[in-house]
């Protein structure tokens, strides 16, 4: 199945693109996809613990199963800032 991976801010700069097309076997979880992305782009490894996993604009756990056409986004921490 085909899914789309979106990357933002620091992650987009590391990978060099904001959008990747990824082919996966049926039943693949977000966590398994993340492992594949990290293997291909090892410079993302240091960001793993602060990465937010999102599918179709909703935050998910790494065991969420992906479906054809899903849009996965790997989000860095948002800007935050002082109050």
């Amino acid at each position: 199945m085909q899914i789309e991976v979106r990357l933002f801010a620091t992650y987009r700069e590391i990978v060099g693109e904001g959008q990747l097309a990824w082919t996966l076997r049926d039943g693949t979880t977000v966590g398994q996809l993340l492992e594949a992305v990290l293997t291909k782009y090892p410079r993302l490894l240091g960001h793993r613990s602060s990465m937010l996993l999102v599918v179709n604009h909703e935050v998910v756990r790494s065991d969420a199963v992906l479906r054809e056409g899903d849009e996965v986004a790997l989000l860095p921490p948002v800007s935050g800032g002082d109050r």
Partner: protein
Amino acid sequence: MIEIQRNRIDVGSVVDSVRRDDAGAIVVFLGTVRSDPDVRALDYEVYKPMALRMLTELVERAREKFGVLELSIVHRAGRVPVGGDSVVIACAAAHRSEAFAACAWVMDEVKRIVPIWKTESGPAKRRARRP
């Protein structure tokens, strides 16, 4: 009114969008780009469909939590020069205490959870991320 836009925010229209006869207070917050050494502008990167969904949820939560009557949030995407408005929030309530509280809460939540990232832009500081 919930919008993410690349062009300048018309503050007056945001305020007008929350006016109601049963409101006794409208609180308006402007987030503006602050000058720092070597900073000429901030670049805002937004995951727009998710950000719009989260802003809509924030408005609903603010209605339930504070009993506000109307709430509008407009955020910039792209480059905003020093002194420009990057976000405008207008909140109408029957009384000022709810309007102040809701406006402050919403802005904190926007900063905390909405997928918007900013990068400083300037002659010597091209790609520094601002926390």
